[in-house]
């Protein structure tokens, strides 16, 4: 027999990392750096776990990188059923930051990539 459905509806904080979400809309990737100890974080954080300070500044990340690994998602989860196949990757940019991204172009480990966005997420374009 059918069980009673349980529908979860969520509200997610967006003001907290507003600069990041705004950056995505302009094709830019922002993250936070601790003003006190200089630690660069990605993903961005409100608080520095290293020196306990919460005095963070926003910095723009370099868009040059290398594709470290990837996977082509064929069976999509709930919420992504209407997308065609997408490639989830990890890119390392020239600041030494590792970012999750969607890969556009022919993915191969070690290829140079350009980091940009599609307005909603980080995209890494494989440079031929």
């Amino acid at each position: 027999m059918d069980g009673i459905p349980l529908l979860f509806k969520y509200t997610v904080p967006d003001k907290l990392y507003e600069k990041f979400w705004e950056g995505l809309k302009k094709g830019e990737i922002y993250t936070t750096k601790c003003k006190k100890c200089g630690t660069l974080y990605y993903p961005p954080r409100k608080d520095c776990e290293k020196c306990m300070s919460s005095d963070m500044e926003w910095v723009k990340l370099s868009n040059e990188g290398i594709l470290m690994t990837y996977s082509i998602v064929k069976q999509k989860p709930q919420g992504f059923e209407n997308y065609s196949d997408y490639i989830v990757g990890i890119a390392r940019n020239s600041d030494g930051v590792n970012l999750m991204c969607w890969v556009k172009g022919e993915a191969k480990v070690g290829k140079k990539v350009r980091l940009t966005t599609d307005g909603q997420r980080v995209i890494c374009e494989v440079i031929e």
Partner: protein
Amino acid sequence: MNRKVAVIGVGNSKFGKRDDVTIKELAWESVKEALEDSDLTQKDIDITVIGSTAYRGTEIYPAPPVSEYCGLVGKSPIRVEAACATGSSAAFTAINLIASGLADIVMAIGVDKMTEVDTSTSLAIGGRGGNYYWEFHMYGTTFPTYYALYATRHMALFGTTEEDMALASVKAHKYASLNEKAHFRNKITVEDVLKSRVISWPIKLLDSSPISDGSATVIFASEEKVRELKIDTPIWVKGVGYSSDTSYIAARGEWVGLEAARDAAAKAYKMAKISPLDIEYATVHDCFSIAEIMAYEDLGFVEKGKGAELLREGQTEKDGKVAVNLFGGLKAKGHPLGATGLSMIYEVTKQLREEAGPVQHSFKRYVALTHNVGGTGHYAYVMIFNR
């Protein structure tokens, strides 16, 4: 540990799509077996720890109904969770309760009813097995995707192939065909794996463990109780290692092995005062075929990058150098998250007592290990047992 701890009773339900029972009857199958195995009754149990991830079932707070059904009311004040390593987190808690002197006999029940939701919902829950905000929300990662990121990198750096990975699945199904409690009993070939549907490349359907329902129960006791109860073949806990890693997988900086598993293994070997080469039997966390290859390396059976070689040489078969997953592994025995870690202890107990029937491995030193990973190395538990 302040006090020695032994396994004195084990039970394992039939794994599979168990739409014939709710989580309560499913738990009872292994609880009953463990009580009978140890010759105890519920009143002998001081505390029960219940491990369940629960999100895929209708009973999202499963401990009270399970406890009531199994006659353990008043004895189960805690439910624990560590994703796919939930069973080991229950064992870890139970061992600590005894080692600390708070209890003498503790029952750890691991149970999950995972097939009550559909696959798309299940993938969306698994995709949150990292960091919702920075991963799933933007990238629609699924749980296979996380392991696929490791597989792709392992292939690129060490030349591991899709055929190599397929061998792990073939081995799992071969042994599961001899295990009447396994989710799958069919044998498969490398070709079957390679031709199976791609889930998250390079991971295909037959590289993946199934979504299973099941339960496993382990009863632990202090050394004093082992003597008092005159237990024939206690299986001693010799080493317990644990660790964890970042939720955001990209932050780890390398994707060819699980640092949490390496750290947990080092702690367990140190406590047991043995080396990886002393292990004769291991249950490893083969949720995907690449995970079995990485486990050989992370546990130190071979150096990093050589895992596929060990598999190809057949060294992890029954009576090989270190036999691995002779009950069929997560891949074919099944992977009900809450039960898996305790099912591993069930398995090494059966092996060390020489009660494993057609899959009995031949031991010289009677040393075995369990390797249970939660998430994609977000949690890891390595435990060492001997007779």
